[in-house]
């Protein structure tokens, strides 16, 4: 009896395997290369099934690699011809290098590309902006997250201007009990990313300022940059005691324990605080400097997707990317990952109120990206690393804002032609 049962099981298994194989032979199977191993569930259970409903003949799997190994292992697989059909793109130079080596297909004529603004595409274009090789997928927005409870308790309201912002910080500090702002300078990147690149665009007027640096018509030692750094220099007084040795995780914990009122944020922090902070959260955009009327936000292009030129399923891959330009994908993606915002111009409904707040700034403010990312970080010294260093030093009080700006400019001038004129 037992033997028959085993035989039966074997038969069923073989049959299932055969059906599976036939099914696969009929459908085209495509593989996505990605570094977002955290998002595997979301892709496999939400996004890809939604696409499968439109195109049952195309089968797509999401096969991520650990973020730290992604670039190296992808390069190896591309060289060996075993890379997936669809490739998640890092912004700027990393993806550009893949395109230059001929691994990423040109996507200029992809239907649906017109739904993406120029600034979104700039992360995956050749330097002249003529060729686009990845579809923009998501961006992260900077701003400040705050505890609504603490704001009510202390009778505070959201600041519009820098003056109001510092007054607010003074009030929190003088009332005691709370750390005004949760940020440390130990890891340095927060000082640059959540500090410099967060409040800076209002000073250098977003894209205009960024493009001027690339064109060589503005200098990093100009007043907007000195003013940005001078603003940062005042932060030191409002950060937690011992902020110089406070790491990113420390800052997150300090805020989610309710010991700090304001958290200079990247929108990706939303997910963390949703699961850790037990109080109501609000967000306000970077405050305006005196006299400014227009606001700018850092809406940084963080992730895109392209097609491997060696893929045997070019048509299917293009169909998938075209679907990724639709509002349907944007809505699915944005709600599954609050804090990573789709870059298309579609109006989409976000469920998370905090994410809604962040994305609403796109309507009132102009978007820009971090100014060191495109072209300007190709030389030695590396501009992005320099910004980390001087931002942290300025907050620590070991460097004056004007010295810091002068150092950034000197470093850039050293190797970047347009700045040497």
């Amino acid at each position, binding site marked *: 009896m037992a033997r028959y049962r085993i035989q039966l099981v074997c038969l069923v298994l073989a049959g299932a395997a055969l059906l599976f194989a036939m099914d696969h032979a009929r459908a085209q199977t495509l593989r996505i290369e990605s570094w977002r191993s955290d998002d595997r569930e979301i892709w496999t259970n939400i996004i890809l099934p939604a696409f499968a409903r439109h195109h049952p003949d195309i089968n797509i799997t999401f096969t991520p690699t650990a973020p730290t190994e992604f670039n190296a292992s992808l390069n190896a697989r591309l060289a060996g011809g075993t890379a997936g059909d669809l490739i998640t793109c890092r912004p700027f130079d990393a993806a550009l290098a893949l395109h230059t080596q001929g691994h990423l297909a040109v996507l200029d004529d992809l239907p649906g590309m017109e739904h993406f603004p120029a600034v979104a595409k700039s992360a995956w274009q050749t330097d002249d902006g003529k060729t686009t090789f990845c579809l923009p997928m998501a961006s992260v927005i900077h701003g400040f997250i705050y505890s609504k409870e603490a704001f009510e308790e202390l009778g505070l309201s959201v600041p519009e201007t820098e003056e109001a912002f510092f007054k607010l910080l003074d009030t929190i500090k003088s009332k005691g009990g709370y750390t005004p702002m949760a940020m440390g300078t130990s890891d340095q990147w927060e000082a640059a990313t959540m500090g410099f690149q967060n409040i800076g665009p209002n000073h250098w007027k977003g894209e205009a300022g960024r493009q001027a640096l690339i064109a060589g018509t503005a200098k990093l030692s100009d007043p907007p940059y000195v003013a940005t750094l001078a603003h940062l220099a005042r932060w030191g007084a409002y950060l937690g*005691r011992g902020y110089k040795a406070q790491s990113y995780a420390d800052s997150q914990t300090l805020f989610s324990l309710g010991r700090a009122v304001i958290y200079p944020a990247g929108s990706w922090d939303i997910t963390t605080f949703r699961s850790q902070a037990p109080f109501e959260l609000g967000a306000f955009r970077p405050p305006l400097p005196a006299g400014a009327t227009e606001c700018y936000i850092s809406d940084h292009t963080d992730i895109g997707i392209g097609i491997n030129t060696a893929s045997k399923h070019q048509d299917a891959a293009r169909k998938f990317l075209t679907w990724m330009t639709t509002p349907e994908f944007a809505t699915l993606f944005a709600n599954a990952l609050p804090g990573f915002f789709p870059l298309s111009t579609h109006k989409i409904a976000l469920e998370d109120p905090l994410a809604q707040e962040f994305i609403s700034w796109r309507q009132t403010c102009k978007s820009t990206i971090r100014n060191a990312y495109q072209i300007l*970080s190709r030389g030695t010294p590396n501009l992005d690393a320099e910004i980390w260093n001087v931002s942290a030093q300025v907050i620590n009080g070991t460097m004056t804002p004007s010295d810091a700006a002068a150092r950034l400019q000197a*470093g850039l001038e050293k190797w970047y032609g347009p700045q040497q004129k």
Partner: protein
Amino acid sequence: MVRAAAEMMRARPRLRAATLLFFVGPAFLIYGLFSVYPLASTMVLSTYGTNAAGQPLFVGLGNFVTLLTDDSWSGPFWNALQNNVVFFAIHMAVQNPVGIALAGMLSLPRVTGRHAYRTVIFLPTMLSVVIVGFIWQLILSPLWGVSEGILETIGLGHWFDPWLGQETTALITLSLISVWQFVGIPMILIYAALLNIPDDLTDAAQVDGIGHFRIFWHIKLPLIMPTVALVSILTYVGNFNAFDIVYAVKGAIAGPNFSTDILGTFFYRTFFGFQLQQGNPTMGAAVATVMFGVILIGVMIYLFTVQRRLQRHAF
């Protein structure tokens, strides 16, 4: 009989070559393949650069000239070397004397709990650097650390500072963490050497009425000098190759303002790149070659000036 012996004599050179090959060959092969070849190929790589199209290009000593003369390379390089010297100096000034003292105390004739002490002091050495870095970051954290509270209970609360976050103190703090972790190594080596000293020598001194400290200072210490020298050179090589503790605590950017940057982290950033800075394997190979040179010079100085003067005492 005679003929057989003569035959053997004739066969002997071939036999000797075969024996040699049998015993030395495997080691030679393994060292050659995994030590000498990578080292040599690193040096070869350091003489290359890349042209605009990304193709390798022979530049001779160009990378070294850039490394030592171009401000944006030589500044960080000299900074890293200087920090590394400080890192080494702190180990020599703290780790080794403390290790010797601990070994000296452990080898006293009557110590209760000798084995327990030995184990406890050696324990951190066996911990992963990542764990050590994490523990100390927590202990020293100005937000959740215990060090401030401890200082306050003994009335020194105002001494507390975010030591790992200040340019003036970060490197010293990191060095001391590393000392704490590795003090077990000199202790155990020197302890073993001290155990080797025959009791008659110390007994004779004791009969003459000399105290334990003078016995250690005048009799034992001179006898264990070869081990002390060995420990020093191990410290030197280990410190100039160090990377992990800085990386675990401060990351590859070795902040604040590169005050904890040592040759290992400088090499890492150069070779593998960091954030938006793309890795530069050829320049990284040049840095690695210089690191090798620094260590080689140190070891040679040791071999030619110290090692030769040392007298080994056989008992």
